[in-house]
């Protein structure tokens, strides 16, 4: 029996291959976007994990010598006192095609190094080779290949365990390559220390221990970036499910007579339901698999940009390459199944309530739907209310996202109600019979199209919202860069002695020299960089203060007050009028707060004289140089030649700005691409809805055709209808998108990045987006319109045939 029933059920798809394709595409698209985002997230997280594991960077304290590199004798003193520390030597190494970050660690004492262990096990590399000359270099595959081709380097071993963009090696090898083999950059304090070791200030008072970053570190920042991506993934997923919902609903609707017949022939409802569930799950799995493959391609295309974003924005190390992980496949297929189940729930519910002997057809047109449209709108308002409650009661990112979700889904549910009223309004303006009909007909089509239009609404709102956020971000950032990077040239000296020489040299060759001197210290157990500045017009005129006031700079350069960056202000809730106490016990009133985008750590500014009062050696190796912009290149060249400075010791402002802008532009390529994809899915939803509505369209169009409207006109009107609905939806998406942008800028951003951005509006962008949406609708409507244009009269005549 089951075989016969299966055949009957399956025959539907054989007769409606397009419907089957639509259903599978819906599932596949939903799964693809979701799993692409997941793949990106998983990959990035795996990268952080490997970096953390590799370098224990996130968890172990460091000991540094504030006056410069550490010496071997300092290391020996620590060790002979019992301190369990691992020496690290970092540096930049010139190789063909650029400079690389060389990370030399004491392989004997550094906490487990997976790269080496893996190399030993998999590739049979003996550690003896890594420890003794010439040593071994470990790097990720692409970099490793480049290095292998470079003459004069030790053998290079490719390993996925090495952090991106880093070449790992033994400290001995690093010393041999970088020169000054006894130099140590810093030591890492290992987690297990022996009993009764003497305190640091008794054995080496000149050294300082730096605790690891607590809250506000890389983890929370990148987490929020991933939360952002996940939200977009879910949104895309929801958009895809609209397609599934629509198609499954239609398929069930069309199969009602068959199901009724099967039941009349004695098939138990339970058997039928079970078989239909199995059928759907199989389809979900097929669609899900296609989606996974698609998702892999999307992720592969986007990942390099994501990697660039994370590296640029947060300094988080992420590789641009993708690996397939089982958890990702499972999550993708799981979402396909769950999503399909959720999208078909309504259809099954209806099926269960299907009376055995109800007559087919006779579906009411508008009256019945008005009520349900209003009910949907009430539910939508409820969701919006829930979102607002979430943000009133809760705090943090999750509440922000709840508000977003509430608004987006709520607004989507209100869409049919709003559209139907807008269409009523439009109908009232109609002058001719034809336009009157077009408006009325659009309203009649609304129930069939509303799901697709909701999808479009969400896609558009996300597009406007994220676009506004991105552009606001960019605009603010550009302005900030202009204010912040005022010196034409930035120089970094090797050490204090060279710094002093450079300062003297620059005194003769430039307008003014601004020393950039900073101390890293702790504030509320988080690291803070405190800068010392000299009094200069540059700061007074340009420094980007969020809280400008009279005499701010007089107080700061007079040593009376401190400036802090926005991140610190928001994180610790410190504002002008409050005070900051820095170790050991110097307290300053806060004179102002300045914006400091792209930097996760706390920062403060004092006068350079105040900085000296901390009793710590303040390195004097960095300088901002003011000089006419046409002299920058010459001075930089002379400087490099006179002091034998490496290229990265000199940064000219224009270059730095360009580089910064590039990073920030890349940041949003990803969200931009996701938006376009989401819009594409929405377009596909419209397209499939129009196709499924096709059979219902002819009876409505045939009488109009019979009254003397050509098929060409009708086809044109079909397109127009699709465009008008899209345009109206876009119009409604605008306020929703702006609201989304506001939440992103004022709620999510503060949580995620630690800074709040002013919101700028970009009507031209909206116009472009609107045009894009209209174009999407136009493309979606093209095929149905073409079909209408070519429909044989005989098909239209069937509408009038007697036996209906």
């Amino acid at each position, binding site marked *: 029996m089951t075989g016969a029933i299966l055949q009957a059920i399956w025959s539907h798809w054989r007769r409606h291959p397009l419907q089957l394709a639509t259903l599978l595409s819906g599932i596949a698209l939903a799964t693809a976007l979701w799993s692409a985002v997941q793949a990106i997230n998983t990959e990035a997280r795996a990268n952080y994990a490997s970096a953390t594991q590799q370098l224990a960077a996130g968890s172990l304290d460091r000991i540094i010598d504030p006056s410069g590199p550490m010496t071997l004798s300092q290391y020996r003193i620590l060790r002979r006192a019992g301190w369990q520390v691992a020496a690290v030597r970092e540096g930049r190494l010139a190789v063909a095609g650029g400079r690389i970050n060389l990370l030399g660690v004491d392989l004997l004492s550094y906490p487990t190094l997976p790269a080496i262990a893996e190399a030993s096990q998999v590739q049979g590399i003996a550690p003896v080779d890594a420890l003794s000359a010439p040593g071994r270099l470990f790097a990720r595959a692409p970099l490793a290949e480049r290095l292998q081709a470079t003459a004069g380097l030790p053998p290079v071993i490719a390993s996925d365990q090495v952090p991106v963009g880093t070449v790992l090696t033994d400290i001995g090898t690093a010393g041999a390559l970088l020169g000054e083999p006894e130099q140590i950059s810093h030591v890492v304090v290992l987690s297990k220390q022996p009993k009764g070791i003497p305190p640091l200030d008794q054995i080496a008072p000149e050294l300082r221990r730096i605790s690891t970053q607590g809250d506000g570190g890389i983890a929370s920042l990148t987490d929020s970036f991933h939360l952002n991506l996940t939200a977009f993934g879910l949104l895309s997923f929801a958009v895809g499910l609209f397609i599934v919902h629509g198609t499954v609903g239609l398929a069930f609707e069309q199969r009602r007579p068959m199901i009724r017949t099967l039941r009349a022939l004695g098939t138990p409802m339970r058997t039928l339901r079970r078989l239909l569930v199995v059928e759907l799950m199989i389809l979900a799995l097929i669609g899900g698999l296609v989606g996974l493959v698609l998702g892999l391609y999307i992720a592969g295309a986007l990942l390099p940009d994501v990697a660039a974003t994370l590296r640029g924005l947060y300094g988080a190390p992420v590789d641009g390459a993708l690996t397939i992980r089982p958890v990702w496949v499972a999550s993708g297929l799981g979402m396909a199944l769950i999503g399909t189940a959720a999208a078909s729930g309504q259809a099954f519910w209806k099926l269960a309530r299907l009376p055995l002997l109800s007559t087919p057809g006779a579906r009411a047109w508008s009256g019945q739907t008005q009520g349900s449209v209003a009910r949907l709108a009430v539910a939508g308002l409820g969701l919006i209310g829930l979102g607002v409650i979430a943000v009133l009661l809760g705090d943090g990112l999750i509440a922000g996202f709840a508000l977003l979700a509430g608004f987006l889904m709520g607004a989507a549910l209100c869409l049919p109600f709003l559209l139907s009223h807008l269409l009523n309004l439009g109908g009232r303006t109609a002058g*001719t019979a*034809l336009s009157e009909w077009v408006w*009325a*007909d659009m*309203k009649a089509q609304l129930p069939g199209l509303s799901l697709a239009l909701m999808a479009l609404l969400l896609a558009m709102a996300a597009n406007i919202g994220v676009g506004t956020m991105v552009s606001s971000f960019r605009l603010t950032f550009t302005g900030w860069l202009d204010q912040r990077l005022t010196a034409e040239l930035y120089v970094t000296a090797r050490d204090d002695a060279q710094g002093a020489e450079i300062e003297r040299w620059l005194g003769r060759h430039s307008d003014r020299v601004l020393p950039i001197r900073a101390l890293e210290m702790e504030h509320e157990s988080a690291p803070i960089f405190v800068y010392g500045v000299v009094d200069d017009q540059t700061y007074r005129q340009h420094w980007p203060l969020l809280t400008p006031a009279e005499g701010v700079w007089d107080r700061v350069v007079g040593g009376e007050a401190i400036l802090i960056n926005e991140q610190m202000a928001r994180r610790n809730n410190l504002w002008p009028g409050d005070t900051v106490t820095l170790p050991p016990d110097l307290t300053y009133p806060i004179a102002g707060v300045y914006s400091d985008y792209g930097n996760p750590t706390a920062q403060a500014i004092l006068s350079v004289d105040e900085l000296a009062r901390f009793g710590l050696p303040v390195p004097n190796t960095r300088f901002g140089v003011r000089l006419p912009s046409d002299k920058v290149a010459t001075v930089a060249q002379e400087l490099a030649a006179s002091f034998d400075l490496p290229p990265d010791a000199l940064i000219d402002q224009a270059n730095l700005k360009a580089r910064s802008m590039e990073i920030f532009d890349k940041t949003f390529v990803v969200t931009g691409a996701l938006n376009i994809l989401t819009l594409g899915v929405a377009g596909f939803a419209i397209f499939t809805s129009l196709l499924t509505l096709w059979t219902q369209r002819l009876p409505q169009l045939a009488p109009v055709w*019979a*009254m*003397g409207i050509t098929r*060409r006109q009708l086809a044109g009107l079909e397109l127009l209808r699709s465009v008008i609905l899209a345009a109206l939806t876009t119009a409604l998406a605008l306020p929703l998108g702006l609201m989304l942008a506001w939440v992103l800028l004022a709620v999510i951003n503060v949580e995620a990045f630690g800074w709040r951005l002013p919101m700028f509006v970009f009507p031209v962008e909206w116009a472009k987006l609107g045009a894009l949406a209209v174009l999407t609708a136009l493309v979606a409507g093209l095929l149905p319109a073409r079909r209408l244009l070519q429909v044989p009269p005989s098909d239209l005549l069937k509408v009038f045939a007697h036996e*209906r």
Partner: protein
Amino acid sequence: MLLSIENVDKAYPGGRPVLTGVSLQLDRGETLALTGDSGSGKSTLLNLVATLDHFDAGEITLDQTLYSGLDDAGRAALRRSQVALVFQAFNLIPSLTVAQNLSFHARLAGVLDPAWQETLAERLGLTELLDRMPEQVSGGQQQRVAIGRAMALKPPLLLADEPTGNLDEVASAAVMDLMLELVRDAGSALLLVTHSPAIAARADRQVHLSQGQIA
């Protein structure tokens, strides 16, 4: 003469002939009933006259317009202003109100006569129903709307295909009465397809179609 059908042939796509050498004339204001069995080709002939379908050979002329010389737009224009149709299944536009349906064709043709429109609504007994949607009124009422929609145009030629086929006998008689009355008042000619001898008898003239030929 208003309508002239000369030697018209029409075959189904498969090649089976539907109409063979059909010739027929209709004067202005004349009513003609086209009778015949199911499948005799009477609806096909009506569709040809309505320009809804193409004939294979012969010629149809309506008020000196040769059908064979018309393109798609020309045929649509002819339907819009010269011919009005009443179908068995009423075929109202579901998304428009009764009032909008009533005036739709006339407004399409740009010949709306509000006084005539009002008269029609009154005489068809639709005054109370004007704001309703088609699905909210009975079958008989729907057909009266369809007749009103056609007659609002005061078309030279009204084509009706089994206009009372979906109605019971009482309603059917009333609807026929109204239609004939309005056709006469508007001075339109009527080509009426029916299988009912009683209804056919009310036309000025009857033509019987049998196996695609005039008997």
